[in-house]
């Protein structure tokens, strides 16, 4: 593989994370709930990992619980919030560019009688704070906004909207999908009640995530059992994944500023090169540094992906989860069909290089000749 540029789908596991996971599997393999020495060791590892992830999130360790991933965190948060506030109202506000984990959970809440308002983005993919605030109503009980869009890298005004909602209705709850922001963007948690994160987007392992829950907020779990994770997430903790998550957060936070500058430079090189080939950029100007969405304006994404794949370049069309369906994010932006059909998402990690970008650009130029 010459250029893996699909880091918003998943990343390689960082060596530090892999080592931590191996140690949790072969040395420190106790059950954190056990009373014997191995159990205590595992408990210490669990607390250490929780601290590492909490520092990356910017919260106190006791506000963080581990889950099986972003999807579970999101399901837990949205269902718990709707349930907790259903006596106050039935209105929920979100955006039409959210990940399917949010959209489909909201859809199921819609079937249970909640009223969902989805705020659309502008043509450049950004969502304005005014549009979000305008959607808020006196009976709005929950606001869920992603921090960074997974397909375009657009940074959403989660903090402003959260503040606006709290001013009007202090009891309303705010959830932020922070999956694509973790270790990449600052994520102010001032007016945020819950926030969801995933390990495998930052060099951790698949099958692990975290949920931030504001101190003092009691929520109903999705799963019942042994009462682990403050009773919010029962089930023996997945220690190898959790240890890897902690190690990955620590490694990424050490170099975060330099990594962001590096990725931003690569992003600029990528955008300039793609424009020179005649590409249209579907991401907003002030997007996160690691995601660029672009279209050549003709042909189909999956053909580009295969053609690029033959040259050792891995990218995706839209979200990896959508598998060939037209992107709901780009549809919401109101882009022309030819741009949506041919959309490619290029996503970087701190280990991405200029050579990889050049390799992608060369392969893109070749692939465009197929049409």
């Amino acid at each position, binding site marked *: 593989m010459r250029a893996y540029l699909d880091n918003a789908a998943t990343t390689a596991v960082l060596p530090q994370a892999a080592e931590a996971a191996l140690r949790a599997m072969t040395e420190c393999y106790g059950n954190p709930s056990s009373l014997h020495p191995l159990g205590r060791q595992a408990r210490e590892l669990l607390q250490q990992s929780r601290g590492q992830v909490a520092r990356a999130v910017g919260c106190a360790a006791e506000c963080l619980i581990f889950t099986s991933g972003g999807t579970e965190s999101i399901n837990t948060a949205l269902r718990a919030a709707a349930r907790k506030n259903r006596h106050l109202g039935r209105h929920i506000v979100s955006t039409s560019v959210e990940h399917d984990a949010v959209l489909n959970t909201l859809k199921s809440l819609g079937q249970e009688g909640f009223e969902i308002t989805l705020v659309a983005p502008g043509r450049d993919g950004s969502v304005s704070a005014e549009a979000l605030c305008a959607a808020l109503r006196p009976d709005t009980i929950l606001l869920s906004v992603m921090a960074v869009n997974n397909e375009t890298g657009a940074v959403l005004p989660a903090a402003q909207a959260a503040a606006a909602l709290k001013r009007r209705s202090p009891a309303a709850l705010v959830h932020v999908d922070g999956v694509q922001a973790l270790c990449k963007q600052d994520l102010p948690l001032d007016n945020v009640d819950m926030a969801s994160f995933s390990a495998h987007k930052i060099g951790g392992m698949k099958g692990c995530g975290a949920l931030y829950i504001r101190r003092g907020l009691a929520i109903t779990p999705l799963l019942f059992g042994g009462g682990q994770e403050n009773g919010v997430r029962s089930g023996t903790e997945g220690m190898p994944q959790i240890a890897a998550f902690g190690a990955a957060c620590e490694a990424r936070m050490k170099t975060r500023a330099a990594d962001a500058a590096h990725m931003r430079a690569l992003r600029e090189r990528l955008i300039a090169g793609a424009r020179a080939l005649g590409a249209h950029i579907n991401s907003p100007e002030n997007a996160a540094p690691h995601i660029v969405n672009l279209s050549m304006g003709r042909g189909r994404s*999956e*053909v580009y992906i*295969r*053609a690029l*794949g*033959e040259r050792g370049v891995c990218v995706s069309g839209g979200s990896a989860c959508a598998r060939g369906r037209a992107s709901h994010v780009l549809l919401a932006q109101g882009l022309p069909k030819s741009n949506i059909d041919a959309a490619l998402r290029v996503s970087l990690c701190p280990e991405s290089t200029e050579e990889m970008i050049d390799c992608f650009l060369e392969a893109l130029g070749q*692939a465009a000749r*197929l049409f």
Partner: protein
Amino acid sequence: MREVLLLKCGELVLKGLNRGRFESRLLHILRARLAPLGDYRLSISQSTVYVEPQGDAPVGEALEVCRRVFGIVSLCCAAVCPKDMAAICDTAARYLNDELEHTRTFKVEARRADKRFPLTSPQIGAEVGARLLEEHPHLRVRMEGAERIVKVEIREQYAYVSGERLPGAGGMPTGANGRAMLLLSGGIDSPVAGHMMARRGLELGAVHFYSYPYTSEEARDKVIELARILSGWTGKLTVSVVPFTHIQQEIRDKCSEDYFTLVMRRFMMRLAERVARHQGCKALITGESLGQVASQTIESLNATGSVCRLPVFRPLIGMDKEEIVVRARQIGTFETSILPYEDCCTVFTPRHPQTKPKLENVEKQEENLDIDGLVEEAFAGIERITLG
């Protein structure tokens, strides 16, 4: 209780002097298809094939395999017993016990191939019938229109009591009528067309056109899966995967859009014929059905068929889509055919395709193409995959 399979041969009994050849062909096919399951002794007499499992070779699985062998009209399992009336009655009672619980009317038909057997056929029938009535008092004998006909056969060495009769695949043994090349796409129609012609005794080869990267590996895997399902009926089936990308790009660059599909289909027919001749096939088979799409009007069929000399069999030509779907379900290809992967026919689809093309106009479109060169290039790049 020892069980065997009895397979009733169909049309091949009618074929006069060719009968011996067809019978040995059928036995050859059955041997090959049953070999992976275990050891079976096969014999044929009076248009019935006897399949006797040896050792622990399974009966049920063998029955499923034989249901998919062309040339067999019906088949059943049968219990084997000594040629002795008491044993025959006991065997019938035990073997059919569960089944007769749910049966209302029946009759016993006996046949005596061994005329030395002391009872006549009607006498055997009456005795076995009486015994079954004793065991199942709710049963009624019905000479006309009985729900279940219990067959008892007295042969050279043993007597046989047959179980429920199932319909076979029908048709003629694979290969009895030679070899033909099927144009296999990923759609619903072509596997059905292949099945219909294989049933008429044709041994199949298949050719598939592959346009990577316009079409995906998944689309190719889907075609291979269709061929695998088809090979459950036809026996061993080789798919020649023809690289088609360059030809499609040439057509796009050098022909006008409304002729894209027609010119492409003509290349497919040329290549299919090239592969067919190479593999000793005497005809082509397509899944075309009159008027189904623009390339299947009379004019279009004439334009695409005129590039090859071999006869083109189009068994679906007069069938409705619904009828084709019913058959696709019966042969087990439907669920795979409807998987949503693109095939090469959907690459560069014209917005307004020609539906009544004049042959000379189509030929004019091809003037700028190096037809022989492109065909040879594609032929040289063929990958062969054998299923079954």
